[in-house]
C-alpha cells in the first residue's frame, strides 16, 4: 500500500511537470487524481473502491480524449464531438501522436480497463477486491505515464 501511495503522488507531480500540464483539460485530470487520492480515505470498502474506479476511469478517459482531440485538430482531421476511451485509443494508435503510439502491453491494458470499468460501473452489486483495484489503478497509471510522453 505504501508503494501505491508513492505511485499516486508521483503521477500527480508528473502530470504537473509534463509537457501537457498547461492544457486546461489536463488540469482537470490532475484534480481528478487528487480526488482519487482522497477516495482512499473512504471508510466503507464498497464505496471506496467504487469511488476509486470512478475517478481513475475519468482521469484516463479525459486525458486520452484530450490528447486524441488535440492531435486530430492540430493535424487538420475531423474530430468527433464526444470521445470514448475506445475511440481515443483507436485514434491514437491509428494516427500516432507526434510519431508515437502506445506500446502493445499498454494498448492491451487500456482495453482491459475499459472492460473492467464497464463491469463495475454498470453491474449492480459488483465490486472489485483490493488487489483487482490496485491492478486497475496501476494500469491507468502506466497508461497515463506513457501518454504524458507524447509530444503536444
Amino acid at each position: 500500500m505504501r508503494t501505491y501511495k508513492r505511485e499516486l503522488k508521483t503521477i500527480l507531480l508528473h502530470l504537473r511537470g509534463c509537457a501537457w500540464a498547461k492544457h486546461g483539460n489536463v488540469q482537470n485530470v490532475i484534480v481528478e487524481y487528487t480526488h482519487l487520492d482522497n477516495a482512499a480515505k473512504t471508510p466503507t470498502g464498497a464505496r471506496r473502491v467504487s469511488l476509486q474506479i470512478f475517478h481513475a476511469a475519468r482521469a484516463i478517459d479525459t486525458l486520452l480524449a484530450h490528447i486524441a482531440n488535440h492531435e486530430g485538430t492540430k493535424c487538420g482531421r475531423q474530430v468527433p464531438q464526444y470521445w470514448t476511451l475506445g475511440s481515443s485509443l483507436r485514434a491514437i494508435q491509428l494516427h500516432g501522436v507526434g510519431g508515437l503510439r502506445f506500446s502493445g502491453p499498454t494498448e492491451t491494458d487500456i482495453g482491459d480497463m475499459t472492460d473492467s470499468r464497464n463491469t463495475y460501473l454498470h453491474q449492480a452489486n459488483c465490486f472489485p477486491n483490493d488487489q483487482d483495484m490496485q491492478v486497475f489503478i496501476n494500469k491507468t497509471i502506466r497508461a497515463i505515464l506513457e501518454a504524458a510522453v507524447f509530444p503536444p
Partner: protein
Amino acid sequence: MRRKDALIAEVAALLPEGSFQERPFYPNLLNQPSLLYIPELGKLVTVHLYDFGDGITWHSALGALEDLFELKTTVGPFTKAVAIVKLPEDTNAENGDMVRLLANSFDAFLALQGKFSPADILRGILDAGVREGMFPLWREEAMYQRSALSRVIDPDAYASLVKPALERLPQGRNLKARAMELLQDTFREPVIEGRLVDSIKSSIGHLSRTYRFKFDFMVSTHPPVLVDVLDGKRNGMRERLRYMMAKARLIRYRVGPDGIVPRAADYRPLALVGGTLSGPNHDPYRYVRALRSVGWEIAREEDVAGLRRVLEP
C-alpha cells in the same frame, strides 16, 4: 557521504511545499530517482544519487547511464535528469572515462567533492539546461522500445523463465561451458568466444579512446547472434540488467555525418538465462519486459526448442 536520504532531505527542505517528492515511484523504472521536483508547471526534474566512493566500474557507470535512458524514454525527453555523484578518490584514465561518460550524458552532473552545501546542490540543479542535442537519440529509443514491446509478450513463451522456484544453478555447474555446447549443437555454426562489438559509448561520452562491448559468445549466423550468459537469481539482478540494457541500446547506433543514427540490424543480442528471471511478486515479467524492450531475445539455457523459436525471423 552523508546518508542518501539525509542529503536529499536537506536539498528538499529548500524547495517549496508540494513541489517535490522524495523517493518517487515510477512503475517502469528499474532504479528510482531519489527526488522528483516540479520547479514550475510543465517542467520536471529528477535527481539520482550515486555513491561511487568505493570505486566505479563499467557495470555501475552503464547502470547509471541506463537510468538516464529510462528516464528520457519513459518519463519524457524534457525531464531534466540530474546525477549527484560521490566519486572515487583514485582516478585513472579508464575510471576517468566512466565519470566523463556520465558527466557528458546527464543534463546536470554534480560531483560531491570537498565542502558542499545543499544550497550549492540546488543551484547546480536549477542552473543546468536539458541537452537538446540528445533528443533524436531519446526519441529513436522511445520508438524502438514501443515497437519492441508491441511484439511481446506471450506469457506462455516466457513462463519457464519467471518461475520463482528456479533458483541459482547447483554449485560447480559451469553455465558458460554449457552455453557454448548448447549454441554449437543448436546452430551448427561457428561459435566465437568473447566477441567485441562497436558502440556509441565513446561518442556520446566524448571519451579519451574507443571502447567496445564484449559479449560472451557470437554465433556466426546471418545476422550473427551475440550471446551473453545470465546467471539469474531472485534478488540483486537490477544492476546486471541495467548494464545489459545499456549495452543493447548502445550497439544499435553508429556515428554518421549528421550525428548518431540507428545502424542496420546487423546483430541479434541473446540473453541465455540460467536460474530465474522472475521480477517482483506483483509483476513477475518485469525483467523479461525490460530486456525485450531494448532488443534482447531471451531463452532459457537447456531449452533448445525455445532457443530456436526466439531466433526465428
